[in-house]
């Protein structure tokens, strides 16, 4: 099964750091993660130097997983020029376009 995660709550860093990233690193997450999309303050995770973001980016590179920040949220936080290398920003049309080839089974909001 393929899933995509949308991080829209303040719980994102906890769930990523303590559950999803370790499981992906250990190849035991149970599903293939096609992509992750970050809303509001969760975009701070995607900043260069953020330990969770750096770890996530490494997993994403290894597994070909999409990471994308919400453009409006990123702009409002003035961090567009401080995101991890290769992490695009966009909105729903960009997310759906990027995920379309992956044929995702579930989109899970956390």
């Amino acid at each position, binding site marked *: 099964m393929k899933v995509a995660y949308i991080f829209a709550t303040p719980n994102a860093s906890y769930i990523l750091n303590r559950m999803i990233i370790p499981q992906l690193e250990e190849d035991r997450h149970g599903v293939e993660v096609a992509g992750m999309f970050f809303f509001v303050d969760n975009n701070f995770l995607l900043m260069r130097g953020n330990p969770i973001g750096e770890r996530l980016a490494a997993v994403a590179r290894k597994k070909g997983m999409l990471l994308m920040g919400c*453009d*409006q949220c990123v*702009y409002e*936080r*003035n961090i*567009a020029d401080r995101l991890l290398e290769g992490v695009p*920003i966009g909105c729903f049309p960009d997310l759906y376009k990027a995920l379309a080839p992956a044929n995702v089974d579930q989109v899970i909001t956390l």
Partner: protein
Amino acid sequence: MTGQTRRRPPPLPPCTSACCATGAGRRTVGDRVRTTRWSAPTGDADACAEGTRPDERLVLRVGLWVEGGTVAAARFRATTCATLLALADAACEWAEGRPVAEVAAVAPPVLLALLPDVPEGRRDRASLVAAALRAAASCVPRPIQPPEQEGAP
């Protein structure tokens, strides 16, 4: 105008972003996304034009109010792409007070220079904004010249 009252552009709402509150002056993309001050109805404009990008269903409509060959006011309406909104907002502010001929020749780098914090992957929006602005400026009605008198030198 013949017997019609000239309609004014919608007034600019006050800036509520940090750029003015902190005295920083220059508006970032974030400031413009928070308060798109130049976004307003364009129906009463002297000249109006639309730019579109069908593949992404992006639409931008720019309206210009012109006085004596100068853009007195510029307003826009756009589909909800944050970068497009920010660039259109900056472009309308830039156009105000400039000669129509200068606005009619605007190129994307001019607009991108207004918002250097637009990331690489989104800079293509400037082409759409520049095209709409150029099209609107090209639609500005030219003043009617008095006919030359016969026999005039």
